[in-house]
């Protein structure tokens, strides 16, 4: 018996960026073209790999749509299990596509200032991908740190006073959050005696008394870390400043990092505090629901109060995080389906908007002044090249149309995916699903919609309205009311990523049915923790090449 080759693909999203990133590190800036293309090839590989994973998880190649890779051939719960299911595969795909767009954007300018941009970019991808795949809590911490360490470097990329100031806050917040993560981790280990997610979930129903209380404290501390990453109110004050300060391609990747926080909450919370969890079932549900709602209000208020485009994008990301968290806390599988669809759409929209901001800014700032500013800000040895020739036609038309498309998506107006996602969420709230009980043969009639449901709908509508108002205000000021406009010079490589991201969004609209079907299966799978626990813990390790049997060791953890 040997590992099927498809299972090795689960490791690729971690290994490939790691190797490429390491290979790029010793190359000097004189090789910047080679560096760019190597980096590009790596991301193309990730896209292909993610597509393959989506195919295998959804195509029935793997039982229950889960592919498991046991790192180092240690069977769970003793080793680290990497697991690709429908949800993580689609997130990997989103990461790779967004990475592709961001990297393409850097070709003209951003990839050339500063030495290790491409290395850090690859490590960032490695950390994000690892966080999506790993099913071991401590390994999750390690991947979070890889992701964060790379993001610290990337936020500083293009080194000026504003970025330094934003980084100081960003790093301090994240270091403190990492400490909370470790505290939570230690408490969870102390009470359950394991760090494998499936094993933890299997042991939670057995906890009682002091252990249960300690476990809940540990879980809360870990949740604080993830909620800081996903910028839940009141933990998200760092976000708008950091987004506005970071260089656009980096900011686009940061949008995804907030979604990593929401993804971990979605997966862990549904797993550990599922209905099977006995006394711990549903712990923290209200905190997620109302915290999410408060986040929507905070994001909407922030969006209304600012007129800087970068901060507006930051607040838009906060609104989308809040919506997601509230949706998760609402606790209804078909709502989660729409929520994941919303996650993908809003990530694309905010990322496209962040890339667009730089191009829009050029309308007002003469390009030469901007270059001078960057040059002055140290660390630039090779002068970035002015875009020569091959400009794109109809610059103003492109900018305003792309801006309008971003606005439509962020605000959730038809026909772009923002609308479909919101429609799906409202539909789910208004048609409460019979959860899990139907599987046990207990049918309950249609239940009434709780007040929280109405409040959630109202808040989502309201946040959409506010997004329209503030985006319109910005658009009118930029495109109509700014007097004489000198169309800026844009390079093709800067326009393509935005068209690509918006094209993906339009694709999501056209293929909404297929995508919703896929996400419904993904959501269904994460709502069945029992299947998942069984699969992970029963995954056999391969027999070693040596024929001598290993000594039988009784590793049953002692009762804590």
């Amino acid at each position, binding site marked *: 018996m040997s590992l099927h080759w498809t299972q090795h693909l689960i490791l690729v999203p971690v290994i490939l960026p790691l190797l490429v990133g390491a290979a790029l590190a010793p190359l000097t800036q004189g090789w910047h073209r080679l560096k760019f293309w190597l980096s590009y090839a790596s991301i193309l590989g990730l896209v292909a790999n993610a597509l393959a994973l989506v195919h295998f998880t959804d195509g029935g190649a793997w039982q229950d749509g889960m592919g498991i890779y046991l790192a180092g051939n240690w069977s769970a719960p003793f080793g680290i299990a990497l697991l690709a299911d429908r949800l993580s595969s689609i997130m990997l795909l989103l990461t790779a596509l967004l990475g592709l767009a961001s990297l393409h954007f850097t070709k003209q300018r951003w990839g050339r200032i500063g030495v290790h941009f491409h290395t850090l970019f690859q490590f960032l991808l490695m950390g994000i991908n690892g966080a999506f795949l790993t099913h071991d809590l401590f390994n999750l911490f390690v991947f979070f740190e890889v992701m964060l360490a790379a993001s610290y470097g990337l936020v500083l990329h293009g*080194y000026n006073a504003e970025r330094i100031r934003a980084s*100081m806050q960003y790093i301090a917040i994240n270091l403190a959050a990492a400490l909370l993560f470790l505290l939570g981790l230690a408490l969870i280990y102390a009470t359950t005696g394991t760090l494998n997610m499936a094993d933890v979930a299997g042991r939670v129903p057995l906890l009682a008394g002091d252990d249960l209380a300690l476990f809940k404290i540990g879980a809360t501390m870990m949740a604080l870390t993830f909620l800081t990453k996903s910028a839940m109110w009141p933990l998200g004050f760092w976000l708008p400043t950091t987004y506005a300060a970071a260089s656009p391609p980096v900011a686009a990747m940061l949008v995804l990092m907030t979604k990593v926080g929401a993804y971990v909450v979605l997966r862990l919370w549904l797993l550990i505090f599922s209905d099977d969890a006995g006394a711990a079932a549903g712990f923290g549900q209200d905190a997620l629901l109302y915290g999410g709602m408060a986040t929507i209000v905070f994001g909407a208020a922030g969006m209304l109060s600012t007129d800087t485009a970068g901060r507006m994008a930051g607040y838009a990301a906060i609104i989308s995080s809040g919506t997601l968290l509230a949706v998760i806390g609402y606790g209804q599988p078909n709502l989660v389906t729409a929520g994941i669809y919303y996650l993908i759409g809003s990530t694309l929209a905010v990322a496209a908007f962040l890339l667009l901001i730089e191009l829009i800014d050029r309308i007002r700032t003469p390009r030469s002044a901007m270059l001078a500013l960057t040059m002055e800000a140290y660390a630039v040895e090779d002068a970035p090249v002015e875009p020569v020739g091959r400009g794109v036609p109809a610059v103003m038309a492109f900018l305003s149309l792309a801006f309008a498309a971003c606005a439509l998506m962020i605000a959730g107006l038809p026909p772009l995916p923002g609308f479909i996602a919101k429609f799906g969420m409202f539909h789910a709230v208004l048609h409460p699903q019979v959860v899990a009980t139907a599987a046990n043969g207990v049918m309950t009639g249609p239940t009434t919609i709780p007040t929280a449901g109405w409040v959630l709908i109202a808040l989502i509508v309201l946040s959409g309205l506010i997004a329209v108002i503030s985006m319109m205000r910005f658009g009118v000021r930029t495109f109509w009311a700014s007097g004489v406009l000198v169309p800026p010079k844009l390079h093709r490589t800067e326009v393509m990523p935005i068209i690509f991201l918006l094209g993906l969004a339009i694709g999501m609209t056209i293929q909404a049915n297929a995508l919703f079907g896929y996400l419904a299966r993904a959501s269904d799978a994460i709502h069945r923790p029992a299947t998942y626990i069984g699969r992970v813990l029963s995954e056999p390790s391969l027999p070693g090449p040596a024929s001598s049997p290993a000594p039988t*060791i009784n590793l049953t953890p002692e009762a804590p």
Partner: protein
Amino acid sequence: MELVLSLAIGIVFASGIWLVLRPRSFQVLCGLMLMSYAVNLFIFAMGRLWIDAPPLTPAGTLPNPAILADPLPQALVLTAIVIGFATTALYLVVMIGSRGLTGTDHVDGQEPDL
């Protein structure tokens, strides 16, 4: 022993929190370091406190969990120390950069208006 250790962890962590809330970036850095020491001790203590119990078994013998200290928290602490050390060093570099660019070591990058 439990009481002494938990008091020590508590005091170190509390000092760390106080320092993190101070306005100078070097104080924040020291606070983060103290907090990470406390957290490392805490992880270590979560494997329960043992006296005279090795975490490893001699080669060739079957391990007996009853006389062994839990080795996993020790491994976790090692990883946590390395990661904490690296990120703290990075923060130090950013701090020096900020001092150089803004001319002040205040965390906001400017002196407060008095």
